């Protein structure tokens, strides 16, 4: 459709400000962009246009959007494989992200990475890692580089409640505190490690306490409230930037979809999911607040949604019309 082609290039408004200045309306936009992008990704998966594993971020949007607003340009982000939201929050172009999901030449990794493996040196996004927990030492290494260069930057290292039980996480915690590295460990506790609930997997289910053996302070945050996330993020990033070392933020959040597209999610009841969607949805919650506080009208919110749908549709169109990588790409980028 013609409308889609006139849509702006990118719907992402990288709202990294490092303070409270980003408007709630912008945060609403950024969360909704992720929601609509992920819904579209799920749709394209269903149409066979996205292959392999595809882990959707729906439900957790407030975490990355709130953290991103608390960051300053130059701060680095690294996460695992549920990474589409992190990329959009960093300001990466939805077109190129979607094109990577469809395995096309125009994708961020020329179609060679896929959903779980995308990077943007320009946006300081360091992946996109498929091995549970591996990004934690890597993100700690980014913080090491910041300290080595004394550049005042902070590494925002995301991982889930599942990764929190990997040994290398604690190896990283130990070095980070020992050397006072500037890293915020954001534990996205969406309450299920694939199909295993935290109660069935974790002896200590309060993940913000997981740094206590290393004297790393931690805080539990309502990860469904983007404003609360931003406030906590500002404090935590400030802590790191002032040279006090690492800090942990446990974000209590929830994923609405299965672990990946092929997960029927039978380990929890439909009622449980519905209850969270109806009572705690981060986007609905903020939308109601914007209207109640007269920061936006219903029409404003509808307009935001309409614009985002255009951006997302344009991204999907771009991603399905772009060519697959040339066969010669098989052998490129193996070595520098």
């Amino acid at each position: 459709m013609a409308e889609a082609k006139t849509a702006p290039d990118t719907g992402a408004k990288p709202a990294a400000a490092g303070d409270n200045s980003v408007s709630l309306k912008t945060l609403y936009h950024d969360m909704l962009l992720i929601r609509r992008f992920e819904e579209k990704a799920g749709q394209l998966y269903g149409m066979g246009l996205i292959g392999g594993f595809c882990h959707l971020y729906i439900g957790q949007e407030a975490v990355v959007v709130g953290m991103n607003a608390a960051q300053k340009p130059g701060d680095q982000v690294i996460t695992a494989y549920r990474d589409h939201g992190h990329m959009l929050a960093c300001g990466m172009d939805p077109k190129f992200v979607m094109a990577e999901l469809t395995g096309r030449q125009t994708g961020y990794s020329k179609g060679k990475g896929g959903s779980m493996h995308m990077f943007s040196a320009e946006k300081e996004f360091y992946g996109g890692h498929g091995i549970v927990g591996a990004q934690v030492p890597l993100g700690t290494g980014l913080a090491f580089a910041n300290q080595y260069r004394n550049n005042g930057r902070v590494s925002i290292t995301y991982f889930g409640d599942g990764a929190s039980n990997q040994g290398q996480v604690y190896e990283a915690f130990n070095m980070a505190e020992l050397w006072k590295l500037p890293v915020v460990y954001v534990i996205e506790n969406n309450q299920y490690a694939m199909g295993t609930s935290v109660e069935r997997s974790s002896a200590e289910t309060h993940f913000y306490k997981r740094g206590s053996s290393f004297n790393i302070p931690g805080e539990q945050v309502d990860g469904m409230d983007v404003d609360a996330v931003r406030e906590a993020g500002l404090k935590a990033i400030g802590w790191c930037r002032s040279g006090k070392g690492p800090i942990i933020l446990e974000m209590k959040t929830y994923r609405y979809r299965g672990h990946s597209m092929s997960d029927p999610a039978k380990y929890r009841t439909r009622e449980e999911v519905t209850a969270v969607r109806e009572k705690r949805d981060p986007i609905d919650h903020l939308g109601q607040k914007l209207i109640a506080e007269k920061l936006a009208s219903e029409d404003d919110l509808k307009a935001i949604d309409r614009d985002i749908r255009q951006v997302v549709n344009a991204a999907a169109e771009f991603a399905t019309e772009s060519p697959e990588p040339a066969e010669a790409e098989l052998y490129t980028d193996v070595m520098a």
Partner: protein
Amino acid sequence: MPALSPTMEEGKLAKWLVKEGDTVKSGDILAEIETDKATMEFEAVDEGKIGKLLVAEGTEGVRVNQPIATMVGDSEDKSSPAATQKSAEAPAAPKRDAQKAVEAKPAPKVPKVEVAAALSDPEIPEGTEMVTMTVREALRDAMAEEMRRDDTVFLMGEEVAQYQGAYKVSQGLLEEFGARRVIDTPITEHGFAGLGVGAAFAGLRPIVEFMTWNFAMQAIDQIINSAGKTRYMSGGQMSSPIVFRGPNGPAARVGAQHSQDYSSWYAHVPGIKVIAPYFASDAKGLLKAAIRDPNPVIFLENEICYGRSFPVPKLDDFVLPIGKARVVKTGKDVTLVAHSICVGLILEAAEKLATEGINAELIDLRTLRPLDTATVLQSVRKTNRIVTVEQGWPICSIGSEIASVVALEAFDYLDAPPTKVTGKDVPMPYAANLEKLALPHVEDVIAAAKAVCYRD
């Protein structure tokens, strides 16, 4: 019919949860679908009204992408395809030519270079003054020179700083460069290997020392999955300029868990380079090259060789090319190929073979990935016989790879089967006599060389 798993081709429409005329919004569950793996709920993506249900409940074998219902979309959002309506029109994922064979590489051209004279290196200018030093000192000097040259280079590992190195390779570095750049880590291989790779992503050039490569098995995920694959997975955007180094292979009487040769393990992996020198000059020139290389480099040293002394060129900046083997001694009767400590074995074997009238050509591989097969093939085409020598296990060994290359590309030149001398196919025993039996010795090399020459 949506594809709900990577392997699904058709599914059963188990249950409709909406009926015609229902209004649905994004996230509402439309149907239950049985895939090849599980029963899944299928959600609406867009808001709209259910038009017609095209597939009845209970229908089996519905092909992926077959329309199962129509939706009447929101009038102001026609550009957005309804989940089920448009799927039939969507282009099928382009067929991949997975089975299309990759064209075999042409046989590498053999350069017409003069075979180097014994113990000379074409990379070292003639008349260069040589100084004698141990491999240990050569490695230390290489690191010190590169650290003086580039502030982004730093060394980290267990006992590298205050202790001066578990094998004293980093002696004096803490004093010269300070604790910012020579960093003692906790005993935490998986952690500090990953931390090093992250620092490399950010543009630093870490040298990560493993006290021995045996301990690096704890870290192999970070070495291969994070360091080795990121450049490819990022479409060339992000590199890992990092060196992982330390002693490899059996030491002496330390048992199975501390005596293992990882040469072929790492040589197997695309995205990394693997270096395994023997001489001090190669240790120095290649470690300097490894530190400057923009790729992850595995640098396999040998504990027993650390104390051996060799001439090293006295040059301000002696850097050797990675990926080139060296003809250590020319000969005509048989090619003996080795790397790391086994170069010592073939040198010794060649001396004894000479007394029996067999003139062996000796090749030090120096780099295992990329493997310099051209130099090996050139030699085999001359001698018509080849014996490879290594401490690693025989299955999928470096020798196995060389035998394969030689058989493929120099088959008509061979007068005898390519022969491997390797460690025995057992975990390393502790008992002195058994350990001796498990390792290759000069006598084994001599016997193999004589066998391919059809001599007793």
